[in-house]
């Protein structure tokens, strides 16, 4: 019988052996799924009304914002509404991932202090939950798309890689912020301001094309700006995204994911003594 010998030595900030880590993480995938499911269930999304709410909530939100644009901007058209809903829904995938992730570690104290498992599972599960909430909104958007008569084309297949980038971005942010919140617990109370600012700074209530070049160059610092713009081009206007927009979001997503995972993995063994 092959028996592993495990040696535990004092913590040093450094990466765990990646192959073993990934292997255990993969071995724990059913736990991730079951854990996410139970979290969703706990928030009543297991019931019919809970699921209905998952659809109604984003619909109401976009209705409110549409009204806001209409009142302030004076004019609005179908494209504008399509743009608003499409980008708002994708934005919520990322911001739900952030809000779910921020307390993933600090509220998992009991689990962390009593079982050993790859800790990164917890922020991953937060993103899985955000994804669960995103799927119904996608269906709502498909219906809106049809109802208001937006165009279709093959270019819309670009939605798949853009969605993957968004998911990677959400995952990276969730991992990063869950780790930061262990060391600075007030980050979770600052987060609503952060997501709110991101919402207003990103091309959701307005379109990227209406922004001056000056502001656009500043928006390079906004990880979501070109991601949401590309998403809107693809799913609302059925056009191809710009190469710059695609690269900008991919590089940001990769950067956040890599930095977040590095911080997390190199410190996760230290979490238990700090909770």
């Amino acid at each position, binding site marked *: *019988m*092959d*028996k*592993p*010998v*495990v*040696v*535990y*030595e*004092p*913590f*040093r900030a*450094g990466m*765990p*052996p990646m192959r*073993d880590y990934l292997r255990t993480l993969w071995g*724990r995938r*059913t*736990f991730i799924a*079951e*854990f996410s499911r*139970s*979290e969703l*269930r*706990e928030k009543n999304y297991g019931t019919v009304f809970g699921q209905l709410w998952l659809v109604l909530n984003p619909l109401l939100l976009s209705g409110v914002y549409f009204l806001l644009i209409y009142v302030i901007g004076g004019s609005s058209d179908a494209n504008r509404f399509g743009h608003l809903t499409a980008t708002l829904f994708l934005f919520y995938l990322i911001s739900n991932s952030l809000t779910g992730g921020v307390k993933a570690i600090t509220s998992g104290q*009991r*689990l*962390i*202090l*009593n*079982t*050993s*498992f790859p800790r990164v599972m917890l922020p991953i599960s937060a993103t899985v939950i955000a994804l669960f909430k995103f799927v119904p909104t996608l269906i709502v958007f498909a219906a809106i798309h049809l109802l208001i008569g937006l165009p279709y084309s093959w270019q819309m297949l670009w939605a798949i890689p853009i969605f993957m980038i968004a998911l990677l971005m959400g995952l990276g942010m969730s991992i990063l912020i869950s780790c930061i919140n262990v*060391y*600075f*617990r*007030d*980050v979770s109370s*600052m987060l609503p301001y952060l997501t709110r600012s991101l919402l207003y700074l990103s091309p959701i209530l307005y379109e990227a094309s209406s922004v001056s070049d000056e502001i656009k160059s500043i928006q390079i610092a906004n990880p979501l700006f070109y991601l949401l713009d590309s998403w809107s081009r693809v799913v609302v206007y059925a056009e191809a995204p710009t190469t710059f927009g695609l690269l900008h979001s991919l590089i940001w997503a990769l950067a956040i994911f890599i930095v977040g995972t590095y911080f997390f993995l190199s410190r996760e*063994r*230290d979490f*238990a*003594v*700090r909770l």
Partner: protein
Amino acid sequence: MISLSDFKHEHSPHSIAVSVKDLGLTYTTSIDKKPTLKARLKSLGRGKKHTRIVNALSDVNIDVHYGAVLGVIGSNGAGKSSLMRVISGIVPPTQGRVEVYGSVSTLLALGVGFNPAMTGRDNVYLGGLAAGMSREEIDKNFDAIADFSELGDAIDAPMRTYSSGMYARLAFSVAAVVEPDILIIDEALSTGDAKFKEKSLNRIKELRSSDRALILVSHALATIEDVCNEVIWLNKGTLMARGNPSEVIAQYRTFVNARKSASSDEDV
């Protein structure tokens, strides 16, 4: 650092299961209630210390062999749970080295990973997956778990409707089906009513075998004396004694009684 290597190991009786050398462990807790960015920024200029170090274990040396049933005793805060956490790899040691030869399953707190919103049935899966079992293993053992817990139809009711005894019974039942090389049980025996207590104790006795190592943490000294063949006594993070159960327990009793009478003298 964790280093895993494949290693041929038969773990014949008396071969080593866990070796703990010069182990020290400190927890870092913040002086303010929680570490915050605000507090950190405020204390930046003044170089104020914002964390407090709690010494939970120092210079602990023990070897646990296969076939042994090791009892761990000591008063609250002695560091028993901390020692178990280090052995199961939950907390890295601050000093020293721990070597584990085999798969460890820990019952550190009952019902970890349970979600009260779900039914007992769902929680068997959730708890089992948290403990490292696969879905197939749980499927295979589900009937045994349900039987052992004696919950009957209540297994399909949400766990928030359970009494604390029922909760603990299900939790113990899930844990009792795992058959690891090294099993650690931290104060999980003293749950449920007298009948269930006896049942779980019998289960522990069944699990005793020459190719398994058991570590039991408990305040029930009689149980420890009954089940274990070796006992260690921890006090304030240091190892006070180890050896024959009746001897160590007697020492511990004298120590506790001496302290008790000393403090009751003060009261007068």
